[in-house]
């Protein structure tokens, strides 16, 4: 357990990498971390587990003062248990005030281990973070109860204050290439690797090339599609836009499309630049997982559908008319 000290600790960001590249989720986290650190009058350090990771300088440009490049103790497996152990040791040593990580599959699995070991609180999948200027505590806001409420949490005693953040919930700020920062290589004590989990194989079986979480545009279908074959209608639009194809829960439950496409509280969360909801009523469980998208376009026949309450733009009409029109127009525009 790390107790609160008088000088404010740093704000730490776990910057995730994949295949030696910093993942896109990290930049928004750094920007948010910068804001929190400025409110506290402290520094931002990014931590990255990996070997020769490209794009580390970009973290400094986004607002990090320091990057700890931690040699992954088990680079093949990227083993959560070993990384957690290393992270716990670093936190115990440096005593940051705050630790933020992306609520990616890896982060959501690794970070709770760290919190458990440090006996501190952890708020999951946050969509808003701010410093309460009076108490200097981190206010962590997250969606709960099927997207029906926002709960704000704090961690008054234990340190660090930890949160995982919904991927892409925070926008990356403008990069300043002239920003200076240090890159610190951390060589963990070379213990024999004793990973109890091993990665045997990676199966690229997603039936689409564009990853939902990282797509700039997501085209998503709901019950209004009526049947499995009608996904073709929106898949065509997605293809023209280079967008990822998503689904709300009912089509997945009815077996029209694989679970890997599900966007919602029990599926994936997305925050693309443009989200096109076709025939989706807008249940809170779905809305919670896409409402931080930059622009939401809703197409639905029922004007009273709750999806229009979160939509930036709404078209009330038959999606089987509207979507093909959009597809045709985008195809013209994109040549």
């Amino acid at each position: 357990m790390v107790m609160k000290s008088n000088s404010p600790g740093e704000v730490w960001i776990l910057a995730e990498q994949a295949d030696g590249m910093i993942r896109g989720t990290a930049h928004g986290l750094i920007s948010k971390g910068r804001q929190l650190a400025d409110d506290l009058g402290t520094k931002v350090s990014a931590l990255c587990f990996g070997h020769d990771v490209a794009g580390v300088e970009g973290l400094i440009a986004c607002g990090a003062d320091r990057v700890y490049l931690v040699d992954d103790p088990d680079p093949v497996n990227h083993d959560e248990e070993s990384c957690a152990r290393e992270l716990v040791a670093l936190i115990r040593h440096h005593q940051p005030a705050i630790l933020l990580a992306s609520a990616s599959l890896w982060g959501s699995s690794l970070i709770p281990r760290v919190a458990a070991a440090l006996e501190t609180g952890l708020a999951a999948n946050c969509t808003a973070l701010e410093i309460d200027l009076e108490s200097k505590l981190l206010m962590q806001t997250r969606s709960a109860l099927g997207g029906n409420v926002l709960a704000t949490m704090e961690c008054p005693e234990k340190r660090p204050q930890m949160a995982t953040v919904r991927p892409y919930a925070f926008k990356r700020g403008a990069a300043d290439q002239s920003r200076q920062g240090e890159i610190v290589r951390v060589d963990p004590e070379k213990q024999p690797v004793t990973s109890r989990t091993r990665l045997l194989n990676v199966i690229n079986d997603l039936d689409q090339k564009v990853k939902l979480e990282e797509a700039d545009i997501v085209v998503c279908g709901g019950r209004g599609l009526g049947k499995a074959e009608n996904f073709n209608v929106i898949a065509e639009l997605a293809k023209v836009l280079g967008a990822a194809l998503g689904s709300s829960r009912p089509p997945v439950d009815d077996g029209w499309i694989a679970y890997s496409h599900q966007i919602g509280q029990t599926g994936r969360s997305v925050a693309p630049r443009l989200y096109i909801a076709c025939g989706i009523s807008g249940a809170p469980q779905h809305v919670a997982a896409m409402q931080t998208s930059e622009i939401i376009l809703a197409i639905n026949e029922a004007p009273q559908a709750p999806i229009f309450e979160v939509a930036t733009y709404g078209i009330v009409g038959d999606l089987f008319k509207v979507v093909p029109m959009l597809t045709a127009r985008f195809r013209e525009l994109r040549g």
Partner: protein
Amino acid sequence: MEYFLNEQQQTLRSLARKIAEQRILPVRAELDEKEEFPWELIREMASSDLLRIFIPEEYEGLGGGCLDLCLVMEELSRVCGGVAISYGANALGALPLINYGSEEQKRKYLPDIASGKRLAAFAVTEATAGSDAANIRTTAVRANRHYVLNGTKQFITNGGEAEIYSVVVMTDPARGSRGASALIVEKGTPGFSFGKKEKKMGIRASSTRELVFHDCRVPAENLIGREGQGFIIAIRTLDRSRPGVGAQAVGIAQGALEASVEYARQRIQFGHPISAIQAVQHMLADMATQVEAARALVYAAARTIDAGAKSFSEEAAMAKVFATDTAMRVTTDAVQILGGAGYMRDYPVEKMMRDAKITQIYEGTNQVVRNTIALELLKRKAMRE
């Protein structure tokens, strides 16, 4: 309305509802469209013990009665009348064995029916015989230790899918209805084949086929009861099963009523949901009242049977006629309330209306069943005089 179901019946009802809503609802439109027999659902019902409930405990059943069967029929039918009748026809096929089978026959067949390993079916109807059982043309001629069957049964629910058939045949055509006998014929018996699957108006998830017997040799020990008892077995079996058809009708009507209420609350016309219109309200009120009355009559008939009443033809017939006529009316009104949407296959009520129609026809047309009621009524009056 409170029907004072016991704990097992309440549990059974909620289990059947769960199966209907979680498993049947997502596939009912597809089963209807593709006219597909719901094998997967039948297996699921079997593993949930639903096929055990009407089998006596000595034969690995749960010893439930007519009311238990009705509760399941109603809940399944509330979602899909077609799946429900596939379940119900199995029970119908088992009834002659349960009530008239020998100890050996029961031990041989009932545990398999209870576990769902084999389905059963019941066959009376022919091209020239249905309600007129005396005119059955399928014959069974005794030859040493066998009966040799020839003839064709028509419109047999679960035909082709079931493995155990209780078939009513003529063993002594000269004696008319007194020359009929009931025999168990297993699928796979040489000389026993199936006609093509019928294309139906409703209950399309269920399977209806001809049973074709051509010099089909059936062991003599497959005779249910005695020779000449076939007609009475058929009549008594239908007396026991008619409340089940009534329950099917109540379930279909209940489903249509719920769909109507839901739609009426959602459909906006002239700035208000149509449920605010008194004409619609009165339709809904009449539908609800009729459904509840039908349910009360069906349960009362089922309880009369379960209480061990000696004669219950009239009660069973009343339950069947009233509930099935109600289902036809209520589903027709449901289509009316949904208007254009109701006529479309995207909405469930047109299917309910198609499914409801058969309940007025099978296990005795409602006209023939009214004869039964009238006969009992007049017989009683005559006896008092």
